């Protein structure tokens, strides 16, 4: 007989309650949860593929940029790999399952591979990312400039984390995923995700505070 302590340590019988409102809102309004759209993607219907791309691209590219240290070329490679994989496995899609979680998983894996490839090539400084270009090309009030500077600094600190830590922080703070869902996405335990997330933020603060005058 399995003791109660083992049961409670074990696997959930039901989906956990979302830890923040972002999770609930995302699932409810998310076109990537639309079963009819996903059924069209499975059939490789052109109109459905277009709608799917328009819905998925901001999510995938946004993740890719953050996970690859703001390197545009690497982010584009990652984005392309994700959509390539989607197209290849389209006929196996289950329309009843929202697409966002598995897009996230594919993007995390592709970004990790891209990061490892990038370690063998000379790196471009983070300052040459599109963020600097975007913020430079747009006249900005001081508050906006300050937040862009924060964005650069945070990205630089993020880039110094391990690939897994970076993925956890991005999924939690950018995607708004609860630790439980991040754990499922990355095939880690809930406790491991929470611990690594906390450690990652501490490491980011150490880098950021070291950069302050």
């Amino acid at each position, binding site marked *: 007989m399995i003791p109660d302590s083992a049961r409670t340590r074990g696997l959930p019988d039901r989906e956990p309650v979302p830890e923040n409102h972002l999770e609930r809102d995302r699932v409810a309004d998310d076109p990537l949860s639309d079963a009819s759209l996903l059924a069209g993607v499975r059939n490789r219907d052109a109109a459905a593929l277009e709608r799917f*791309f328009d819905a998925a691209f901001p999510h995938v590219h946004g993740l890719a940029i953050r996970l690859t240290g703001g390197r545009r070329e690497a982010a584009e490679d990652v984005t392309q*790999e994700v959509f*390539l994989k989607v197209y290849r496995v389209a006929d196996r899609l289950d329309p009843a399952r929202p697409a966002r979680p598995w897009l996230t998983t594919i993007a995390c894996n592709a970004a990790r591979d891209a990061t490892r490839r990038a370690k063998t090539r000379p790196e471009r400084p983070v300052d040459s990312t599109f963020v600097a270009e975007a913020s430079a090309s747009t006249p900005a009030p001081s508050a906006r400039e300050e937040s862009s500077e924060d964005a650069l600094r945070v*990205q630089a600190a993020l880039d110094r984390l391990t690939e897994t830590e970076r993925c956890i922080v991005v999924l939690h703070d*950018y995607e708004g995923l609860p630790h439980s869902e991040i754990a499922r996405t990355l*095939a*880690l*335990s809930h406790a491991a995700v929470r611990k690594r997330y906390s450690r990652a933020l501490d490491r980011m603060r150490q880098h950021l505070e070291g950069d302050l005058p």
Partner: protein
Amino acid sequence: MSDHDHSPWSDERLARGLRERGSDHAREAFREGLKKDFVQGTIEEPDRHGSVAPGRRRVAIRWAAALVPLAAALLVYLGLGPALRVVSVEGEGTLRIGTTQVELSDRAGLQRALEAESLIEVPEGSRLGLLFEDILLFEATSGTRMTLPPTPHRWWQRDLAFEIQSGEVLIETGPEFAGRELRVRTPEGLIVVTGTLLSIERSAGGTCVCVIEGVAQVGRDAKSLHPVPPGQRRVMLVDGSAKVSEIVPPHRDALRDFHDRLHHRITPSDG
């Protein structure tokens, strides 16, 4: 108060800095080109950025051609993933591995005898837990006959595969499994696992796949796979039909027990 309460970089400021990048600053040409290729089905592998400057390309190619055989051998060696390890043994008796037999009490002998793609037969009343570190944990239960998977590579040939002739195998994937596939064949069909906790039981009546976490794709062959979500099981009968239902308590309890006993083996310590 914790240390970071004094830091100017609060959790909220960090998260805001992360979100501030904006979600879609992609090059318009890239986005539109990718969309067109995706919709038309002409999407290809990305042309990896960061290539060598043209003036150095010819020299690079000559060197590469000269070193290819050595590099290939080295890459194969370095690219090999972790070797298969014995992590748990319960019960007594003799394990058949290919043409050899090893006592379950001889742990070192078991480890030496493990050979990829060899057929093993677990004695009745026993269990054998095997591990590709951080990638895949599986336990062959009493009376199971199965082949052992070859070592997965780190960079290519990352997928795993084995065959179950009879018996039950409990499976849990690890943190380095993400992005890989595990393909398990039984006489009734194919189970494709992309990251999950599940059991596969093959008996005279057919194959039963029970999933606790993640999703497994199950079917007669690669063209007729059906997803089995958490809490469900799919039974492929020998007559070719299939049945879907909720996992029954004995299977659920067995998987939870397996997870509780051995999960620490597949999850790296956070120490």
